[in-house]
């Protein structure tokens, strides 16, 4: 059966069709919450709230889409909401996250040791990402999580393609530096611990 396009579903939603709304939510709730979760630094509850607000904006301001395809427009709204959230609270993430938080690395059946290790890796990644500005994070996640093309990201972030490429490259460079420094620090700590010398 032919898949109804997102744009057509949105038209039906605007016309008050409940089943179309259910289909849009089924298609995008997980993906959108995942994106926002990454953007806000692994805070699943906040990501869910922002995703909810994104869908509300879709319902309330459908005309702001203009001629744009649905998906990049959805990401535009989500990114702007996350940006507003950071501005409003002047939020800056720096604290590494605890294992009890909900986001976990993919593993089919991790042992407690694996889980702890992955938690540490994730924490290091989240901490490194949080050192980047929200625009860099958005460009990185839209490309590598959302799978949007550079042109779609440019449209979603309302910025030229060249700037998007630059943000992704710079973001990756900075991530590499921060992660490398963090790994070096851990290695040094372990070495010190093994030799019995306090740092």
């Amino acid at each position, binding site marked *: 059966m032919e898949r109804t396009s997102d*744009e*057509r579903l949105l*038209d*039906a*939603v*605007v*016309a*008050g*069709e*409940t089943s179309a*709304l*259910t289909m849009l*939510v*089924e298609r995008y*709730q*997980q*993906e959108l*919450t*995942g994106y926002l*979760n*990454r953007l806000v630094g692994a805070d*699943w509850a906040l990501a*869910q709230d922002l*995703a*909810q607000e994104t*869908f*509300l904006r879709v*319902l*309330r301001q*459908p*005309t702001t889409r203009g001629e744009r395809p649905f998906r990049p427009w959805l990401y535009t709204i989500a990114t702007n909401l996350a940006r507003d959230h950071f501005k409003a609270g002047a939020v800056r993430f720096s604290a590494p996250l605890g294992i009890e938080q*909900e*986001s*976990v*690395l*993919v593993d089919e059946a991790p042992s407690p040791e694996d889980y702890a290790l992955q938690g540490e*890796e*994730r924490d290091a*990644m989240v901490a490194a990402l949080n050192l980047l500005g929200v625009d860099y994070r958005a460009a*990185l*996640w839209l*490309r*590598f*999580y*959302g*799978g949007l093309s*550079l042109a779609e990201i440019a449209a979603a972030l309302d910025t030229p393609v060249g700037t998007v*490429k630059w943000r*992704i*490259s710079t973001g*990756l*460079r900075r*991530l*590499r530096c921060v*992660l490398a420094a963090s790994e070096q620090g851990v290695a040094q700590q372990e070495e010190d611990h093994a030799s019995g010398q306090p740092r």
Partner: protein
Amino acid sequence: MQVDNHDEMMDALRELDATPEELAAWVPIVQRMASWSDPPITPHDQGRLLSLLGSALPQRSPVRQAVQQRLSRRNRLVALLATAHCQISVLRLSFWLLSGALILLGVAIELAPVQSWLLLFWLRALAPLLAYLGVASMFRSAELQTLEYELACPPSALQFIFARLIIVLSYDIALGMVFSLVGWAVGEGGFLVITLHWLAPLLFASGLALALSLRLSALAAVGLPYGAWLSLLILNTWRLENLASVLSFQGEVLLSLAGLTLLVFALWRFTRQLPRHFLAPAV
């Protein structure tokens, strides 16, 4: 969706115009990013979101919902024909009387002992006049100030346009067939040739009128092509040129195709100009 396939990842990184060293260094980072997973959205999460969004969903009146349910039970062609049938009420009695009179006039000229050039003149003059009447009568909603009401109805604006075109063209063509049948019966020429004499200007006038209606009022859009066409015919008749040589059989075929092209163009432009949610039926 997520770029976690190795080839896709490499393609995505190559797009960044990075050096091979950078590419090699970035791959593990992107792999780490891709390994990040989220908790699944539970049915409870989804239900909560849907119930919240449901209250923000535009409300539809019970009458509208009932009409939509009724329409959704039919297939699209039947629904379109039903819409067309409803639209017939837009046409006033004067339209039916005038178009009937035009046909009677055409038939009378065909049956009268007139010269073939005069018969050709009348066929070419009367058929687009039918189109003029039809288009002017069916597409005058803006002047009647009913356009907003129509756009708020369950069938889409595009369905309205199609429905009205079906009425106008099928009615005009059905009436024109009377010319062909009578002319063929009295031995004025082949059925196809006579049909083309009236069909070509009719299609051209309808197509041009619809295309012009994108920019002009409905009345001006139908008046201009018909006025120009009639002037051309009278000018040629006055100069006593052979009308058949002015527009040959091939010329008439081309004129018909041009008319059809203009119709398609006008419909395409309508779909581009109307807001997107007016184009799809709300069912």
